[in-house]
């Protein structure tokens, strides 16, 4: 009989914090600067320099801790993690070992079987290392250059409990985590720029067994999709080993996106001894009640609360509320629109249809779009007032999306104003009726839907500007009376 296995996954996520300056010095954290242009004696670890903690980093870690339902440590400290590598200028990383800033939290994810709680073991603060750039290709490199711009950029490491049971759950956990961190504004969670990095521990065990199986650690997954693919690959690989009666080797494996497989980095986990000890250059970190309360009172509304409020307050369907609260910027866009327009569902429809489509086409984020919720509201008013047809409104929206101009101005400029003048339309209707006697005969014989052809002809002649309702009415009147 085929053995059933249960998948066990735990994640270690590193999120770069969106502070303006580094964790222990005043250098800029901006991404993409010229190599070694954002460095100073402190982040270079020059002899004699000392770290001074950026309080904003603690603020952000506390915000993440509160949003992820953690216990916040009143007494915390930093430790040195010692190892040699050229991208680590002090040959130790200042991190937190046995007293992390936050512990024992959770994230709730939606699964097919309902809502599920994924435990968060700990969140700790640490500094990022630099970046090695190899000249030539990795296998025949003639030398390596080090860029220390990233050295000292603040990170939080969020370690989950081994509570995830499938790649899909893992993806959902990552989505939720990313959404929360972005909402808080503590990280932009941009995986391409490396501001969100994820390692996964994965193992299999016979269904019903309590003890964990042997795990492997997966690294180098550069997107959520890659995480999911790597986990699928690794689960299949481990299952096939177990089914053949072989053992899974505890090791670190790297995901190769091109080969679409995980590759062993080193047999057996090297017994790394980081010789952690308390960082003597920094005082123990004391977080008092008032600090925590100040953070708590400034905590923004989180995605789940916002979604529920959108349903209650605006009467949106759950699906709409979910889409619109996917990011804080999208939700803010919506609420700006709703403040200036009475029908939330109409705003929602336009956002979920035209807005998201155009964003996708342009490959930009909500923040980068020129159109605003206010402009969308103005556009909807123009439709309501009969100034433009809803069909032409799409053209106006696209223009406003591109330029940020206000819809009324675009209508004016492009001459898109709806023709509702009866005298002007009368002439057109008469001409079209005269030109299509066969169609008119059909209508008279009860083929009512043929009227649409005549309306279409008029819309074509007016390049969509004729008021379709009025045209329809005029045609009927003319045919009946004629």
């Amino acid at each position, binding site marked *: 009989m085929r053995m059933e296995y249960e998948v066990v996954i735990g994640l270690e996520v590193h999120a770069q914090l969106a502070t303006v300056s580094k964790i222990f010095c005043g250098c800029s954290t901006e991404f993409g600067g010229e190599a070694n242009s954002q460095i100073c004696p402190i982040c270079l670890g020059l*002899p004699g320099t000392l770290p001074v903690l950026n309080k904003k980093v603690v603020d952000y870690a506390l915000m993440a801790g509160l949003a992820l339902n953690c216990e916040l440590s009143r007494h915390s400290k930093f430790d040195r993690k010692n190892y040699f590598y050229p991208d680590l200028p002090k040959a130790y990383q200042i991190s937190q070992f046995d007293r992390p800033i936050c512990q024992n939290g959770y994230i709730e994810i939606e699964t097919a079987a309902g809502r599920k709680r994924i435990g968060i073991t700990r969140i700790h603060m640490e500094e990022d290392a630099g970046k090695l750039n190899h000249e030539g290709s990795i296998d025949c490199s003639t030398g390596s250059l080090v860029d220390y711009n990233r050295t000292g950029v603040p990170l939080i490491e969020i370690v989950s409990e081994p509570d995830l049971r499938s790649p899909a759950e893992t993806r959902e956990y990552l989505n939720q985590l990313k959404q929360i961190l972005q909402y808080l504004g503590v990280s932009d969670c941009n995986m391409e720029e490396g501001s969100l990095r994820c390692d996964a521990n994965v193992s299999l065990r016979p269904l019903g067994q309590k003890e964990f199986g042997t795990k492997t650690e997966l690294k180098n997954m550069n997107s959520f999709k890659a995480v999911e693919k790597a986990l699928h690959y690794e689960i299949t690989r481990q299952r096939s080993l177990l089914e053949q009666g072989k053992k899974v080797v505890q090791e670190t494996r790297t995901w190769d996106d091109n080969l679409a497989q995980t590759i062993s980095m080193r047999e057996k986990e090297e017994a790394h001894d980081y010789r952690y000890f308390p960082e003597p250059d920094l005082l123990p970190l004391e977080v008092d009640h008032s600090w925590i309360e100040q953070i708590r009172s400034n905590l923004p509304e989180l995605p789940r609360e916002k979604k529920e409020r959108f349903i209650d307050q605006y009467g949106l369907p759950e699906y709409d509320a979910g889409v619109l609260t996917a990011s804080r910027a999208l939700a803010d866009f919506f609420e700006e629109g709703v403040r200036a327009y009475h029908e939330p569902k109409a705003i929602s429809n336009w956002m979920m249809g035209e807005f998201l489509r155009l964003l996708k086409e342009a490959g930009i984020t909500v923040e980068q779009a020129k159109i605003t919720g206010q402009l969308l509201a103005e556009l909807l008013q123009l439709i309501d007032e009969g100034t433009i047809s809803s069909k032409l409104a799409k053209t106006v929206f696209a223009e406003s999306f591109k330029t940020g101009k206000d819809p009324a101005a675009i209508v004016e400029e492009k001459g898109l104003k709806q023709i509702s003048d009866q005298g002007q339309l009368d002439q057109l209707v008469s001409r079209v009726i005269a030109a299509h006697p066969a169609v008119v005969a059909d209508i008279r014989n009860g083929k009512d839907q043929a009227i649409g052809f005549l309306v279409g002809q008029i819309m074509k002649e007016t390049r969509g500007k004729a008021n379709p309702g009025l045209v329809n009415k005029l045609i009927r009147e003319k045919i009946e009376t004629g």
Partner: protein
Amino acid sequence: MHLYELPIHQLRDKIDRQEVSPAEVLAAFYRRINEVEERVKAYITLTEEQAGVRASEPLSGPLAGVPLAIKDNISTAGIKTTCSSRLLANYVPPYDATVVNRLNQAGAIILGKTNLDEFAMGSSTENSGLYPTRNPWNLECVPGGSSGGSAAAVAAGAAAGALGSDTGGSIRQPAAFCGVVGLKPTYGNVSRYGLVAFASSLDQIGPITKDVADAALLLNAICGHDPLDSTSVDRPQPDYTQFIKEGVQGMRIGLPREYFSMDFDQEVKTSVLAAVQRLEQAGARVEEVSLPSADFALAAYYIIAPAEASSNLARYDGVRYGYRSKQNAKLSEMFTSTRSQGFGDEVKRRIMLGTYALSSGYYDAYYLKAQQARTLIKEDFDQLFKEYDLLISPTTPTTAFKFGEMSDPIDMYQADIFTVPVNIAGIPAISLPCGLDSKGLPIGLQMMGGHFAEGKILQAAYTLEQLLAFKEQPAEVGGAE
């Protein structure tokens, strides 16, 4: 009296009264350096050119025109800071240590950088990666260490005053051996920013001077909170010169029984106890006290200091600055050969000790235990300072020893037995000369106080200095004509 023989406060008076210009003072000191340096070898780098430029500029501040020497493990922008190590032999920092900034703001002029045991690890300057410094009182003797260059320079008149650093006695022990005054401030009273770290939780910069009043002057200039050093304490700063006045009437002084009952040089013991008697005659109340945990201090020190050092010195890997071995075909080979060739034996010994003490499986037995001992030692001192203003001991168990005499590292470590507990507890202490032994070598007396009790220490030390009127000058280097 030559200018180089004057203490800082007298030099300052002469400069203020315009009897002499900073440029003339500077010239006098460089002449003196030329005279004695070949024999003493106190300096690694002389900064005559920069100093000359500075002496020609208008200077103001409490140290205007005072020529000082800086230990070569304190960073100076644009001036080599070697730590007496092959690894940093050509390293030039791009920034000034906070203490150097403060000395410059106070108007001081830097004469040069002084020799030390490599990375401040040692008690004789014999561990210097360049050359040893010799004791101006007897050129066959060590000047002490690790701030041996600074102490020898002040003793020889080759600097008006100097900065040293003290991790386990590195200011006080060489001050004692060279017959000058050395003050190790409370941990956190002087910024460590720019001091090349040996053991971060123990290191402290302090003055080495001709007399106690000068120590107060220099401490005034360098102390105080520094936003660049998280361990520097933010508190109101007293003017330490106000404690330069006589008076120990009613002062309660403790003599730690555990120290005086140790087996050490009888002449040192006799001299220190005679000095204590003078204080008693001047009205101090002297009692024997107990410091039971002092026994653990040396053991705890030789765990904590190497542990921190093993981490602090890991950055010298040949990647960014300093020495890089030519054997560098592979990264790991570059790391290993750079460090094997660059560090001296004592530094390697301590890196190995520290790495071992921090290794998983040993951490609890060594590092954690040592930290617990540290807590006990602190508590012992805290308890005593509730009842006593000061504790007095010898600074060192012997006077200056001869080169090569302490070939066993353990013997050398024992030389720190009276000074190390002070660093472990983070308290301030001063060493001042209290006499000469039969070989004509100076004997140092150590006064210890509670946290931030530098004022009391300075007052008692000044009083004793006046009572003893120790005026002997080092014989070997002599006066100039």
